[in-house]
């Protein structure tokens, strides 16, 4: 693949666009993790007592755990949890009352990232909550949404202003005992987004959170909680970037979604954390627990993710289909290049009757990238007429990368219908040559072929994200063959 090779190599010299560091004064607490640190975090955030107790309970549980889960198909040196900072925040003299009071350097950072923070971006129709290291910096459109009764704010604000809702739903989908990283997150999470859509309200705009890790040796632990009341609808987008740093940075987030009767939640992620350099140095360890509960009848939760960043991705957004006739969907594109490793997939737990789930996973491996799909579909005893359709496709570029598929299926009800399709293909020299012969450069050909491969997933993304995702794939494929 010589011709293709050389042009892809040219593309390889493109840098990770978001790798800059913002020089900003930060308020950082000492390294390490113990109960005092947790008390300090809670205190910094002026949290009510119940939050502190919740954190401490999670921390004490975390201490009893043997260590990180080892079943995933990813390899990395042990993480020294005592060497990390668990809280780092841009120093704000006073809490900003409006965007005008937000540090201009921060705004500039978000500008560089292309985030429509300013209200002049109204046309973009995206309300943004921006999380910088540990704290949420600004939330746009808050007032406009409030008129509809929608609460969209940072998690810290929610703890202050809506403690009852937080108390009621926090940990109700992903309990602190769920797994090692969920326990850690529950103990030390510093901010995140909170979203509540009241009964019958259809959120008129896309809600969005941008996460940014800036400070060195800092773990980012945010939590997102979305509650969609009866008959409501919301579409939520999440984007992530980080500076280029030589050491690995830890990101362990938890996302919980709850959909009541007839409610719909669509959750889209474009994850572009720093993937490390081409020799595998640096990059984000992305250990994330995302789960949605279709609590009510006819409810629907749909996950769409485009995972191009991170040195390691460990993530299985799932749905618990508890309500009868509820629907769970998972659409995923995971791309690994250079030395990136991804072990990602979904869990669909069918509890209610006539529940349906769809899984479409597209894994792309290039360079020495290693891509694993791991999915579980569980049909419980009571789930009459449950249906699942799963499709897992892998695309290989070059001969040093790998793709793996681990589908687990557990059926306890004989009326279930399960379909599983899987394929592995390689971008062919023939395909690239065919495009070249029609006047298309090999670089554009690779990008076109990969985008074609991902089409089923991209069309699930909101328009502007779909465009971004396509571009992102092009950049992420740098140095991908050879």
């Amino acid at each position, binding site marked *: 693949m010589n011709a293709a090779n050389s042009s892809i190599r040219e593309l390889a010299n493109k840098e990770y666009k978001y790798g800059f560091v913002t020089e900003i004064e930060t308020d950082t607490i000492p390294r390490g993790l113990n109960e005092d640190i947790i008390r300090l975090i809670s205190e910094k955030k002026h949290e009510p007592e119940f939050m502190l107790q919740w954190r401490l309970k999670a921390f004490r549980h975390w201490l009893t755990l043997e260590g990180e889960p080892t079943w995933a198909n990813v390899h990395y040196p042990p993480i020294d949890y005592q060497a990390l900072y668990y809280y780092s925040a841009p120093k704000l003299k006073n809490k900003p009352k409006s965007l005008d009071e937000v540090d201009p350097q921060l705004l500039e950072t978000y500008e560089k990232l292309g985030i429509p923070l300013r209200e002049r971006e109204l046309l973009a129709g995206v309300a943004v909550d921006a999380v910088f290291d540990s704290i949420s910096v600004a939330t746009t459109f808050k007032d406009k949404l409030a008129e509809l009764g929608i609460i969209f704010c940072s998690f810290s604000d929610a703890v202050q202003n809506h403690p009852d809702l937080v108390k009621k739903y926090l940990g109700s989908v992903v309990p602190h005992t769920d797994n090692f990283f969920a326990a850690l997150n529950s103990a030390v999470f510093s901010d995140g987004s909170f979203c509540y859509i009241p009964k019958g309200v259809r959120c008129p705009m896309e809600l969005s959170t941008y996460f940014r890790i800036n400070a060195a040796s800092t773990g980012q632990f945010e939590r997102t909680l979305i509650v969609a009341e009866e008959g409501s609808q919301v579409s939520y987008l999440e984007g992530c970037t980080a500076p280029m740093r030589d050491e690995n940075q830890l990101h362990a987030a938890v996302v919980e979604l709850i959909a009541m009767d007839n409610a719909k939640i669509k959750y889209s992620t474009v994850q572009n954390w720093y993937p490390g350099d081409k020799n595998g140095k640096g990059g984000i360890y992305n250990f994330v627990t995302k789960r949605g509960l279709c609590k009510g009848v006819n409810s629907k939760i749909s996950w769409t993710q485009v995972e191009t960043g991170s040195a390691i991705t460990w993530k299985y957004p799932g749905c618990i289909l508890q309500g009868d006739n509820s629907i769970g969907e998972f659409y995923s594109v995971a791309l690994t290049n250079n030395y990136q490793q991804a072990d990602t997939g979904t869990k669909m737990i069918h509890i209610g009757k006539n529940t349906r789930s769809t899984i479409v996973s597209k894994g792309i491996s290039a360079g020495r990238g290693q891509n694993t799909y791991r999915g579980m579909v569980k049909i419980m005893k009571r789930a009459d007429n449950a249906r699942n359709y799963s499709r897992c496709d892998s695309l290989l570029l070059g001969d040093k990368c790998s793709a793996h598929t681990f589908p687990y299926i557990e059926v306890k009800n004989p009326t279930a219908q399960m379909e599983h399709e899987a394929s592995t293909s390689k971008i062919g020299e*023939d395909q690239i040559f*065919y495009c*070249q*012969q029609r006047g*298309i450069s090999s670089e*554009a050909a690779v990008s076109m072929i990969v985008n074609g491969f991902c*089409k089923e997933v991209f069309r699930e993304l909101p328009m502007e994200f779909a465009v971004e995702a396509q571009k992102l794939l092009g950049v992420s494929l740098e140095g991908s063959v050879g």
Partner: protein
Amino acid sequence: MRMLEIKNLHVKVENNEILHGVNLKVNAGEVHAIMGPNGSGKSTLAKVLAGRDGYVVTEGEILYEGKNLLPMLPEDRAREGIFLGFQYPVEIPGVSNMYFLKTALNSIRTYRGLDELDAMDFLAYIKEKMKIVDMDDGLINRAVNEGFSGGEKKRNEIFQMAVLEPKLAILDETDSGLDIDALRIVAQGINALRSEDRATVLVTHYQRLLNYIVPDTVHVLLDGRIVKSGSKEMALELEDKGYGWLEEETLVRPEANS
């Protein structure tokens, strides 16, 4: 005008010499047929012209419109007006035929310093071209060649040719795998695109395509060399007598027998 000139072309594939000194001249406005048995090097010749990797020219040269073709990238050859109709067109799942062709056409236009066509202009432009090969909307909107029948794939190749309007079209076994109706449609398309400033090289195993497309010259490629050139009547003779008599007539090089 001289479109293509191949001089003493020697080509190796995986260290085996396939072409042992091919000479060929093609002028604008002409249709040349290159015939020969399996393994004679017909497809190799087509691929070398298009710039396929792995086909190493060890001797000789190729001039296209007077310019040295060999150092040019495959995409630049296409942008300069060389089109290869593939014997086995590849499938590109998830990429619509329309999008693929628009990207191709605009890459070529950009290279030539022309403005790109937007979606509406492109649509209007291909409407005309679709008639040439009886292309239906369905095929246009489907992924490139995915699930196409053999005939549809070949028709799609000719359709692409019509859209891209090459100066030199090399059609590699365009007739293979076609039933008689499909063959007629494809041949019609090729004929419709014949013009004074365009040259066509038909690479074919059988004479039957030449019933529909009358070439100016027929060449016989045997064991990597053009051993005989003549008029279309020679094609009929070949059909009748096979290639055997030519093999005997020609001094066969020892490596060709190995």
